[in-house]
């Protein structure tokens, strides 16, 4: 099943199983069903609890916050993740603070779903991966869609806890098949899940057992799928073996699965599509280098996109955003 369909089913299920769930966003009503068709059928099945909003992200964030304070579980679709900047103030100064500011007397469990990412030629303001600006916001949990994680788990995690959540969905995953681990495998990869208690699991993929891998690669979302294709190619053709760790939760970082892998490989490469500097990978590198001081074979490598504006021209975009060729080059460097 393709990812957008699985996501749509997960939304149907969340609405069906939990009466507190309210879905809102721009243009999500049938027959249009949202810019990426993720919300298709929801207004028909749950007309009372699925609402199209005016074209105002501020309004979406405010209404969602109010609903959450009132006991609902709003899931808000932001049409393009780039527009999350318009929700930033309410997330930073209100939604994530209420619980502490009111000494635990209230909670504000809002989930924002946001399609992110480029490689599509959508230009500077519809292609970004701006989640790094939300990482490290206290009391915000950031989850990332991946081909190896069932989207339903993200909603179940949101509904089971009382914190606000940002769910980052790379838009290139929508038309791709969901490839969940089955019988300990994903295609030619051996797959296992690892996690700390209470955190959505990370999926660890490798062609050979961990002890035969010389590098750990940690990546999420679409970049995880790109990294998997590179790792498979380098393994099958050249016996350069890496283990790929794909977290479902990117903030706060669950270090345990990464550390378990790095303890064996002694090398780490982080991959993200957001721009370089002050980023997810930098945070992980800092922690891993501290934990493994003196034990790493190489310094941790952080791969991120060039810190500039995403060009509209596809060829220029390919150079700027982290693609398979960049990942391959970094893996080769790390293993050289």
């Amino acid at each position, binding site marked *: *099943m*393709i990812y*957008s*369909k699985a996501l749509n089913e997960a939304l149907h299920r969340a609405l069906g199983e939990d009466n507190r769930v309210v879905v809102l966003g721009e243009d999500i009503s049938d027959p249009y069903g949202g810019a*990426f*068709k993720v919300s298709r059928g929801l207004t028909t099945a749950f007309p009372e609890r699925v609402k199209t909003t005016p074209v105002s992200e501020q309004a979406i964030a405010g209404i969602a916050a109010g609903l959450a304070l009132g006991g609902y579980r709003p899931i808000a679709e932001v049409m393009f993740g780039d527009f999350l900047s318009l929700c930033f103030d309410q997330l930073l100064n209100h939604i994530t603070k209420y619980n502490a500011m009111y000494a635990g007397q209230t909670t504000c469990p809002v989930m924002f779903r946001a399609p992110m990412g480029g490689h*599509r*030629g959508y230009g500077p303001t519809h292609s970004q991966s701006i989640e790094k600006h939300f990482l490290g916001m206290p009391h915000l949990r950031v989850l990332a869609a991946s081909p190896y994680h069932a989207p339903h788990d993200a909603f179940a995690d949101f509904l089971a806890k009382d914190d606000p959540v940002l769910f980052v969905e790379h*838009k290139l995953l*929508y*038309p791709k*098949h969901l490839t969940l681990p089955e019988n300990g495998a994903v295609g*030619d990869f*051996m797959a296992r899940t690892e996690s700390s208690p209470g955190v959505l699991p990370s999926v660890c993929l490798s*062609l*050979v057992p961990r002890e*035969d891998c010389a590098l750990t690669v940690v990546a999420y979302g679409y970049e995880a799928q790109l990294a998997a294709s590179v790792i498979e190619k380098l*393994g*099958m*053709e*050249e*016996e350069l*073996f890496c283990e790929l760790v794909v977290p479902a939760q990117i903030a706060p970082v669950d270090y345990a699965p990464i550390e378990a892998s790095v303890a064996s490989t002694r090398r780490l490469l982080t991959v993200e599509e957001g721009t370089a500097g002050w980023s997810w990978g930098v945070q992980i590198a800092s922690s891993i280098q501290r934990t493994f001081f003196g034990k790493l074979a190489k310094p941790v490598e952080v791969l991120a996109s060039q810190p500039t504006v995403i060009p509209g021209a596809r060829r220029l975009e390919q150079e700027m955003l982290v693609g398979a060729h960049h990942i391959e080059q970094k893996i080769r460097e790390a293993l050289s």
Partner: protein
Amino acid sequence: MNDVIVPTSDVNSETGVIVEWKIADGARVESGDIVADIETSKAVIEVPVTTSGYLLHLAAQDAEVSLATAIARVFDTPEALEAYRATLQAELDEAAVRNAASGVRATLKAKTRAEELGVDLTTLDTSRLITVKEVEAAVAQNVDPATLPAPLKAPEDQERVLLIGGARGATQVIDIFRGNTTQTAVAIVDDDRSKWGTEVYGVPVVGGSDRIGPLFEAGAFDAVVIAISTSVKARAMFRERCAALGVPLTNAIDATSKVASEVTMGRGNVLCAFVQIGTSAIVGDNNFISAYNSFEHHNVLGSDISTGPACVTSSRVKVGDRCRLGTGIYIEPGVELGEEVRVASGSVLLKSVPAKHTVKAKVVTTVVVPNR
């Protein structure tokens, strides 16, 4: 036969998923009929046919299909359709047979190594990805030393030599020993299992390189010559293995070659016919020097070097470890080559080359025409 292509200019999707076939496989269609719904990241697209005839599905429901190529074909008659289906099926069957035969998942390197070692991959554990490690482990397990030939015996006064590598390099080294009265090749080891039990110029290939240690301990030979001329990496690797095992290397110097006085000569060097080493030169270990090479006085050669025929140096030239020289190379006085330098045939080197660099040459080539 007409192709049915998804009618879309969608730049957002390269593939779609067949949500539903509206018209069954093999059924009659009329031009304009909607035959399928395809879902892309943006929309569900209805796919019409533009000709009438009989419809052949090229993909199943729920399958991911390219938006650029045909998802179905329309034929004028049911017979034409069935004939085409039969060819498709035949191709599929053939592919299935191929896949069953090669149903083993192995890395490219493992496949190459299995060929070198003569290992049948289907005899290994096929439930996991096979790597070089598994292939080599399988070889180690399968060896029964009793079935392998024993090294030759040699008179007391002879140095008994084991050769590593049973290819053409071995023939050169054995030929060198035939021309002298003090050394005899008694055995060859080679990791290519298909060579085991065969002979090179009457010298038996007694097994793989894992036999070097046990044969030495058993007193079957006195020293080793690495008879691999093509790969400096392999030369270095086997030299290190011998050192780790405490097995000494010995030189194989052709009777026609001239090593001047005051030369410092290491061990494990192969000097083919008519090689000249000038006075006061220093030669490292484990170099394979082909015929008609001349290294002039006061040259310094490293170790694990391999050269082609007719390489000529002037005085005071230095050649670093693991350099690989082609055929017919001239090197000017005082030129220094760093480690792992590779030099193309026909080069004339006027200046030094830093380590890990390759010298390319534009050799004047000839043209062959019929006699007039």
